């Protein structure tokens, strides 16, 4: 058994943007999908814990009840805009389907609402684009359509699972800006999953850093970038290429040596110990607890 996500406590307030960062395979996506119970069960299962949504635990809910929460209360957008739309339906049909599913509307009304959503995500000529198929859109446009679909029922929380990873840099910026805009307009919270520290710095208020299925640091964004406490966070921040420094003195970009340990048989102590340059003997013995080092700033490190 793999504990893909182990003792991760996250909370998101109304209208807040929470960034979840970490490298590939550290449990970010599993965390996100767990919130909406999108993990295939079996083989997956919840060992323990709660998913509290406005004070209500989602774990005991059955599929039908979950379907009322999905999209209407909590929506999710995925990493791959190229394949997240059904190729055999027009974009309008797909947005209208979501609207019809959750709001008592006729097809006609739903299509009008769908056009409105497309206009909201800045797709030019929305009325005509409704009749187009996904393959007639570019990657960035498709991600906009995905956002339109996710937003069409005015959810209170949007989970964005690496929404910009598959897009090129200029489109990334547009999509992030769009999400920010939508957030301001509709007053929802965003859980932004990413491995790009730059994206986090630009959009989030609070950041959670995950490593090997555990939260290793959680802090307001200024505190995290100004005073990163966990060696892993420090490594992540140092590994961002910086134009200004590179110009001053030629130096190699820092990388964190090694890879994430196997979660099949996690080491008993700090999971980062094997890659940590400050690791001491104590680090390999017991998992350090999450301790508060500043206002709202928690870190899982003994140092």
């Amino acid at each position, binding site marked *: 058994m793999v504990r893909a996500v182990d003792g991760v406590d996250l909370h998101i307030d109304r209208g807040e943007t929470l960034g979840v960062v970490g490298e590939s395979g550290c449990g970010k996506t599993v965390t996100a999908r767990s919130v*909406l119970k*999108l993990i295939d069960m079996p083989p997956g299962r919840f060992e323990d814990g709660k998913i509290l949504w406005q004070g209500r635990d989602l774990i005991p809910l059955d*599929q*039908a009840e*979950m*379907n*009322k*929460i*999905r*999209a*209407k209360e909590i*929506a*999710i957008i*995925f990493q*791959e805009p190229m*394949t*997240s*739309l*059904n*190729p*055999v*339906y*027009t974009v309008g049909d797909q947005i209208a*389907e*979501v609207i019809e*599913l*959750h709001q008592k509307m006729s097809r006609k009304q739903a299509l009008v609402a769908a056009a409105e959503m497309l*206009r909201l995500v*800045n797709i*030019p*000529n929305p009325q*005509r684009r409704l*009749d187009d*198929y996904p*393959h007639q859109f570019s990657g960035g446009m498709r991600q906009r359509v*995905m956002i339109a*679909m*996710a937003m069409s029922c005015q959810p209170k929380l949007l989970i964005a699972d690496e929404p910009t990873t598959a897009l090129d840099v200029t489109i990334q910026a547009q999509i992030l800006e*769009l999400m920010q*805009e939508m957030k301001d307009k509709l007053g929802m919270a965003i859980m932004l999953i990413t491995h790009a520290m730059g994206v986090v710095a630009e959009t989030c208020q609070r950041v959670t850093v995950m490593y090997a299925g555990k939260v290793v640091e959680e802090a307001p964004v200024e505190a995290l970038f100004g005073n990163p406490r966990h060696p892993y966070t420090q490594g992540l921040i140092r590994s961002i290429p910086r134009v200004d420094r590179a110009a001053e003195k030629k130096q190699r970009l820092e990388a964190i040596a090694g890879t994430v340990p196997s979660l099949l048989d996690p080491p008993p102590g700090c999971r980062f110990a094997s890659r940590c340059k400050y690791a001491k003997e104590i680090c390999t013995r017991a998992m350090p607890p999450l301790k508060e080092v500043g206002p709202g700033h928690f870190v899982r490190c003994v140092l």
Partner: protein
Amino acid sequence: MAGSTPASLSAEAPRVAAAAPRKSRPVTPAREAWRRFRRHRLAVASGVVLLVMFAAVALGPLIWPVPINEIDFTAKLQGPSWAHPLGTDDLGQDLLARLLYGGRISLAVGLAAMFVAVFVGVLVGALAGMSSGRMDAILMWLTDLFLSLPQLPLLLLVIYLFRDTMKGIFGVEGGAFILIVIVIGGLRWMPVARLVRAQFLSLREKEFVEAARALGASKTRQVVQHILPNALGPVIVAGTIDVAAAIIAESTLSFLGLGFPSDVPTWGSVLRDAKDYLDIAPHWALFPGAAIFLAVLAINFIGDGLRDALDPRRVL
């Protein structure tokens, strides 16, 4: 957004103007599919051929009101003439009348058996593809079992066993029709089931299905709305091949004398009767053979065209 909207609108303006005639008639998916279908010339030609055949078998007996079983020994085994455009058989019966009548049965059997095969195949394949583990294994064993059975002897055995019961319930022709459709359809669903299962296995992991799930679509809705339409291309092609195969299977049964009663002409049974006279009256075998050939070919081409037309990703 406030800045970008007007900018993009003005950029769009010339394109909108250029597309004005197109805009007056919105491009619905159905119209788009029809436009794509028309691009496939063979499919369109085949559609025309098939329509003519349908019209001929439906209206033909009214326009050509010659009885199918009028025996006239003075005119037996005649080649095509004005009195008998397709000639006559060994009893002097008019072949055109017999083929027009028999076409009804052959085409109806072909289409009905195809629907049975596709329905069962899609059902089994979808169930197997959606359920993993034991259910999938059992259904695939069943499919393999059916595939491994020798088709023709089984066909003959089932018909031999149940012919009289069915005759009792549905009458002579009705009983034979239902039995043949069920038997042919029931022995041809396996390729469809395998196709559908394979499609489902890959499609159900696709992001758009997960996206639908994340947006609150129920399991049924995911299958019917999102997975099935994507799996339909190969099924349509398999289905059209099944029509052809069913017509041929019916011909085989008739040929072996286990299809419809021997006084009912179908394309297959006419062909069977003709086989002993191939050297003296080749026209007798030629025309029903050509009818089967043409129908099968036309249906296959239409299936080809449909698959291309219904896949919006294909640029046509």
